[in-house]
């Protein structure tokens, strides 16, 4: 990927800001998501909650299913590949996906190496639970970051933890003396130039969304107030009682995340939220995949 292409890919993420990216498994769901105001959809065969329930190996979705969703909506379409599975990524690039999510939600294909994302023309988004992970993924070519949270749980605690940690680490890097950055880069196992960018700009060099556990408009607004630039909602919408209504409410909550009055209005009468799993009940911590 040349520098210009990388800039274009980072720019696409900027256009998604302030928006909600929704997991969808069918053409019908994709249309519901688009009509509800999703700024992009993530096409996958099973949403994280069902992946969790089913167990077994979870892989890239059938390209035919992804293509059907591409044909059905006008907004960007993303899809997931397993961590390190660069051939799945080549396949998604071949069908002109708008964004690839190298995702811990699927079973990792490689327990050491991530995909060399600089070899691709299509953009990648990757998960991170701290600043070190985020900068390592960016160094590998990710054009967008999302906090990992804990997918498929409907429990916001881990997304909060990861977003707070990243923001706190950013504030700490900003406060360092410039000559202290070399040591910080060594300890965090990240390239110096990326750390210097954080030091000078007080933010990641790419757009940062929140993901993993958002189930309500209040959850989405919480992540925005904590510094997310947008929100991924996986299981939270289509595992709830009234997906359309909930999707619309979460979109509005992200646009007006600082207005409690509006948040109160759109939190009312949404029906059942997804049941969810508490942090202590989780058998499998997906966030621990890929560091």
């Amino acid at each position, binding site marked *: 990927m040349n520098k*210009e292409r990388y*800039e*274009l*890919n980072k*720019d*696409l993420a*900027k*256009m*998604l*800001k*302030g*928006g909600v990216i929704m997991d969808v498994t069918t053409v019908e769901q994709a249309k519901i998501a*688009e*009509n*509800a*105001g*999703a*700024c*992009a959809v993530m096409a996958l065969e099973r949403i994280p909650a069902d992946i969790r329930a089913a167990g077994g190996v979870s892989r890239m979705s059938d390209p035919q299913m992804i293509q059907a969703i*591409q044909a059905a909506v*006008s*907004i*960007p379409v993303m899809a997931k590949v397993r961590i390190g599975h660069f051939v799945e990524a080549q396949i998604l*690039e071949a069908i*002109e*996906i*708008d*964004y690839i999510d190298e995702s811990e939600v699927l079973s990792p294909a490689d327990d050491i190496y991530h995909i060399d994302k600089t070899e691709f*023309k*299509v*953009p990648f988004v990757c998960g991170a639970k701290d600043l070190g992970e985020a900068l390592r993924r960016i160094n590998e070519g990710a054009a967008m970051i999302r906090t990992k949270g804990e997918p498929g749980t409907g429990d916001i605690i881990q997304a909060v933890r990861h977003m707070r940690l990243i923001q706190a680490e950013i504030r700490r890097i900003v406060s360092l003396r410039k000559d202290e950055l070399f040591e910080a880069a060594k300890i965090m196992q990240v390239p110096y130039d990326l750390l210097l960018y954080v030091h000078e700009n007080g933010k990641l060099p790419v757009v940062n969304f929140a993901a993993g556990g958002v189930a309500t408009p209040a959850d989405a607004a919480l992540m925005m107030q904590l510094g997310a630039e947008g929100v991924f909602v996986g299981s939270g919408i289509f595992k709830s009682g009234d997906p359309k209504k909930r999707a*619309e409410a979460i*979109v*509005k909550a*992200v*646009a*007006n995340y600082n*207005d409690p009055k*509006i948040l109160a209005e759109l939190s009312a009468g949404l029906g059942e939220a997804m049941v969810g799993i508490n942090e202590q009940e989780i058998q499998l911590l997906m966030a621990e995949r890929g560091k």
Partner: protein
Amino acid sequence: MLTIGILALQGAFIEHEQILHKLNVKTVQIRQLSDFTENLDGLILPGGESTVMGRLLNELSLYQPILTAISNGLPVFGTCAGAILLAKEIINDSKLWFQTMNITVKRNAYGRQLGSFKIAASYKDHGIVPMVFIRAPRIEKVGSSVQILSVYENFPTACREKNMLVTTFHPEVTDDTTIHSYFVSMCKEFHQKREIK
């Protein structure tokens, strides 16, 4: 001092804000009806997803007041999705929004993200400016009252009709302030006319 509102429902609105601040213009983020006040000298409709912004404009009761303000001469600048919101006709979408500008656009006319590109081209008589096209629309037809300000591969990429300026590219993601300066001068004119009244 000028005050320009930036629709901040979704998309790259902060980038517009940063460029306007470089030009010493005050900005207001428009997220709900109470943000859209009388004293604005201009309005930017940013890049993002037109389907998202259009929907939220209606939901948050912003559609009608903004439409009225544009019809009454408020300078408005639409980039990419913003241009789609202003277009009279959209070739590949049945949903239309403000429809105040005599242009016909085609959404995602250059394809998906792999079709996104960057060029440098001349903008009116203001020299060469960088232009970033992200899943960009294309202006396929313009009315006779529309002035074409920039062209790429025989299609207009920047146009003006009265108080409305559109680009199918994103000047807000570059360091170049040419096009924003042009818009600010439109807003200045509007501001001065209003003061005389």
